[in-house]
Every structure is written in structure tokens, then in C-alpha cells.
């Protein structure tokens, strides 16, 4: 018997065991004797950044070439607060960074989301580039091109100091990512989240059936900006250093590539994409930066031509084949 639509909706919300796999892997990695925890922390931070982009791009269909704007705002908010205001308590600073980035998301969302296509691409890109110019010019405040140095962060919960092996950073980032994942998962399975998918599929129809399209887009843009800001703040706190790169077109592009590589519109694509991207970059850059550039370009072209669903899309197809053979 077919499921009642409401039951079908609820079934999507129910936690499947496979959804715990990434968390089991992340926790397991921590206990490996030769674990590269700084790289692991970087992956967790970028996974959070990519997850934030997934809400906007994967679920709502807003193509942004400037999501690093919010990542950078979060990084600078946490970094500047610690450096100049003595706000060295990490968890409250993380929330503060998220709020600042979210507010920036509301403002810029209300401006840029009125446009579409190439114009939207240009405007999202312009916001990030302008912020980068400003951060560069305010050298007395941000350290400019030399980066913001001399950040001091208190132990997490007053107990766990940021150590040189990156143990505290790793666990801290993992817990934050887990909480953000719960939030994101709640959002995409809520009626609001289904409304976002409706906007992605056909915005005209959504407004015709009375959905407040613009308000929903600005709301999800702000939530996504806040999560990206938290990711940026995590980076600032775990490295105790902020460079202008956090606002760069390069970062905006990298996070977009990670998400697409992993598979968008499915939450877990962000995890898979960030992991594959950063591990590959780490390995290939050891050989030569040119190899890395060519490799990622080729991967991107191949993904677009042959694997639109990204890595997780390929897994789906493979699983469907196996199941099909069995029955």
C-alpha cells in the first residue's frame, strides 16, 4: 500500500542508520594512532561551510559565487573580537560570529536576491570582493595582507586548551558540525524546507500558490550565512590566525566545487565533497600544485558531464544496480 503523503513526508525525517556513518567515521578517525588531526579539523570546518552552501544552492537553487563573504565575516568577527575586545571565550564568540554573518546575510540577501542568472552571480561575487577590499584597506584593524595575528582563545568550557596536535580543535569542530547538521536536517525536512525545494523547482508557481518566495529566500540565505560565519569563526579560533583569503573568490569557488563534487541537495554531499577535495589537494599538492589544478579541473568537468549527482549520486546509482540485480 502506498504511503499517505504525510507519512511519506515523515519517513524522510526519520533517522536512518546510514546517516550515522559519517559521525562514526569522524569519531573513529580521532582515535587512529597516526591521524592527521589538523587536516581533519580543516575538513570538518569546510564540511560545515559546504553544508551552509547546500541550504542555499542545493535546496533553494540560488547560485552564489560569493559565499566566502559570510565565511570571512565570521572569521573576522571572531578574530577581531578576540584580538581587540578581549572576547577570548570561544563558544560565545562562535555564536557572536554566526549572528554577525547572519545579519550580513539578511542585508545582502534583501539586495542581491532580487536578481537572477548572471546578474545574481555578479552581485554575490561583488559583495565578497568588496568586503575583501575593505578588509585589506583597514590594515590597522585587520592586519591587511599580513593577516590578523596575535589571537588568544581561552580553553573550551574552561577545560580544554587548544593544543598543538589539534585534538581540542578537532573535537570542538566535530561537535559544532554535529549541532549544525541537526539544525540543517530539521530545516530541510520542515515545511519551510519543502517550500525551499519548491522555489528551486519553480519559483513562479510557488508564488502563485501563495508562498512568500522572497521572504523564504532571504531567511534561508541568512541561516546559511550564519552557518558559514560559524565555520569561518571555527577556522579563526582553531588556527588563531585570519588571512584575507577567507573572503576570496578562491574560497567561494572551492566550497562550491566541494559541494558539487560530493553531491548537492542531500546534506551529506558536503561531508563527502570536503573530505575528497581536501585529501586530494593534500596528496596532489605534494607532487606539484599544477597537478592539483589540472586534477580538480578534470574532476569538475567529469562531474558535470557524467555524474551530475556528485559522488553520493554515483553511490546511489551503484546501490540501485546492486538491488536491481538481487530482485
Amino acid at each position, binding site marked *: 500500500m502506498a504511503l499517505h503523503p504525510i507519512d511519506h513526508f515523515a519517513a524522510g525525517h526519520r533517522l536512518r542508520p546510514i546517516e550515522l556513518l559519517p559521525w562514526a567515521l569522524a569519531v573513529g578517525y580521532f582515535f587512529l594512532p597516526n591521524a592527521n588531526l589538523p587536516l581533519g579539523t580543516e575538513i570538518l570546518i569546510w564540511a560545515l561551510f559546504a553544508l551552509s552552501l547546500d541550504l542555499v544552492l542545493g535546496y533553494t537553487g540560488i*547560485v552564489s559565487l560569493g559565499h566566502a563573504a559570510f565565511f570571512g565575516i565570521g572569521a573576522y568577527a571572531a578574530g577581531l573580537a578576540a584580538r581587540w575586545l578581549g572576547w577570548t571565550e570561544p563558544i560565545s564568540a562562535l555564536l557572536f560570529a554566526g549572528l554577525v554573518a547572519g545579519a550580513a546575510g539578511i542585508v545582502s540577501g534583501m539586495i542581491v536576491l*532580487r*536578481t537572477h542568472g*548572471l*546578474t545574481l552571480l555578479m552581485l554575490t561575487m*561583488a559583495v565578497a570582493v568588496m568586503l575583501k*577590499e575593505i578588509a585589506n584597506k583597514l590594515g590597522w584593524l585587520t592586519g591587511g595582507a599580513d593577516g590578523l595575528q596575535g589571537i588568544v582563545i581561552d580553553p573550551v568550557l574552561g577545560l580544554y586548551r587548544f593544543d598543538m596536535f589539534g585534538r581540542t580543535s578537532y573535537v570542538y569542530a566535530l561537535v559544532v558540525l554535529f549541532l549544525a547538521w541537526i539544525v540543517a536536517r530539521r530545516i530541510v525536512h520542515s515545511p519551510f524546507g519543502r517550500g525551499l525545494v519548491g522555489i528551486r523547482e519553480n519559483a513562479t508557481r510557488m508564488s502563485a500558490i501563495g508562498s512568500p518566495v522572497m521572504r523564504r529566500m532571504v531567511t534561508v540565505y541568512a541561516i546559511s550565512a550564519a552557518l558559514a560565519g560559524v565555520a569561518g569563526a571555527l577556522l579563526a579560533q582553531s588556527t588563531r590566525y585570519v588571512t584575507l583569503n577567507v573572503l576570496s573568490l578562491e574560497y567561494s569557488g572551492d566550497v562550491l566545487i566541494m559541494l558539487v563534487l560530493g553531491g548537492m541537495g542531500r546534506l551529506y554531499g558536503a561531508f563527502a565533497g570536503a573530505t575528497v577535495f581536501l585529501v586530494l589537494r593534500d596528496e596532489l599538492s605534494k607532487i606539484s600544485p599544477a597537478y592539483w589544478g589540472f586534477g580538480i*579541473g578534470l574532476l*569538475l568537468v567529469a562531474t558535470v*558531464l557524467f555524474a551530475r549527482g556528485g559522488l553520493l549520486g554515483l553511490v546511489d546509482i551503484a546501490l540501485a544496480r546492486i538491488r536491481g540485480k538481487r530482485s
Partner: protein
Amino acid sequence: MISAFIGILFDGLAYAMILYIISVGLSVTMGMMGFANLAHGAFAMAGGYVMVTLMQQLGLPFLATLPLVFVIVAAISVAFERLLYARLYRAGELDQVLFTIGLIFMAIAATTFVWGPLPQAVRLPPYLMGQVDLGFRTFPTYRTFLIVIGAVLILALWLGLERTRLGAQVRAAVDNRRMAESVGINVGRLFTTTFALGSGLAGLGGALGADILAPTPSYALEHLVYFLIVVAVGGMGSIRGPFVAALLLGVMDTAGKYYVPDFGAFFIYVAMMGLLLWRPHGLFGRA
């Protein structure tokens, strides 16, 4: 004061010519097929490298390389268009953006591999160096040459578009692709031709402007934003719009570097945002 102002206008005009010659093909591509080809700048870069290679390896004079550059880059672009781009005409904008970003990365890596990571030095012929006296004051010869040759190219382009059969077909296809197809225009083939011409022009622009925008592996990424500004502000599919946009951008950029070297780029982005919010489809674009 006045003299500096004239100098800025002059340099800005020369820069605008380069920006326009490079970007006009992109405008037509986007207008006709709705294809967001972010890798367009790679064809301009290829133009610069082909010219440098022809001059250094084969010892050809600067002027003789220019038609060759046009033909070679156009030929390369046809191969790309038929083998790769054609698969993505029906794809969404995001796919096109990602695909062409991927091409940019590959172009950067391939260029670094063949020519090394450093910018290529362009040796201009002696007759293009120094100053030329235009009666009331002297101007740099190279930039005067750019403006003259740019004006000739633009005139040829506009006449070709207004007066030839191919031009009429291009205008029809940009206006309404389905209608153009139903009156018997083979838009697919027309597009390949247009793509080749646009890329060839980009290559020519890259070669001509190599002394202003030096050929370097990251060329396509570094100047991407400026090429896109010209198209977005000018209006996709328009021929005249990008020229106005290139003029604004060229003069503003030059003036910004002269008067407010610290904030030049910032003002350009502010102006672009303002213009795009005021006219989301660009100055000469249509909804």
C-alpha cells in the same frame, strides 16, 4: 591637470578597446545560447601565448602574427565547442559555470606546464614604442595603435552585423532563437561560427593587449571579473552595450588607479552593483 585628465581618458580608451574586443564574443555567446562561458578569458590568454610563441620560436614580426592568432584561436575554440560545450547547451546555468571553471583550472595547469608560471614578456616592435605627436600633444604609440586598430575592428564588426547575411542571422537568433530556427536558420551551425569568431576576437584582443594584460597562466581567472562586468553591465546579447560598459570600466579603472590607487577596485564594484540593481539586465539588455 587637464593634461593628466586627457592622459587618463586616452589610456582608459585603449584599455576599453582591449576589454571590448575580448568580451564582445562572450556577450553574443551568452545572448544567443544563454551559455555562461566563464572560460572565455582562456581564449584571450591563448591568443597572448600563441603570439609570443610565434614571435619567439618562428621569428615572425608582431603584425604578421595577429591574423594567425585569430585563425589558430578560432580553430581551437571550434574543437572545444563541438566536443565539449555542445553537450551543455541544455544544461542549467550552474552546470555551465562549474564546467567552465573546471576548464579554467585545466587551462592554468596546462599553461604552467608548457610555458612556466611566470608572465611572458612581450617584445613590441620598435615602431610601436615611444610617443606619437598628434599635433596638440604626444601620446604613447602603442596605445594609439590599440585605439586605431580597435576602432577599425569595431567598425568592421558593427558593419558586418548590420549589413551581412551572417549578421542578420546572428541578430535574429539572439532576438528569438526558436523563431529563427523556424524560418530555416541552422542555429546550431550559426552558433559554432559565432563562437569561433568571438573566440578568435578574444584571442586577437589578448595578443593586441599583451603589453597591458601580460599573458600569465592565471590570466583567465585574474581578469574574469572584468570580462564579466563588461557583459553583465553592457547587457547580454548586445553588441553596443558591452562597448559602453567597456568604456566606463576602462576609464574608471584608469582614473581610479591614478587618483585613488587604494580604493580604485572598490569603487568599480560599488558602481557595478549600483548599475545592476538599477538595471538588472544591463544597460542595453532586455528582460
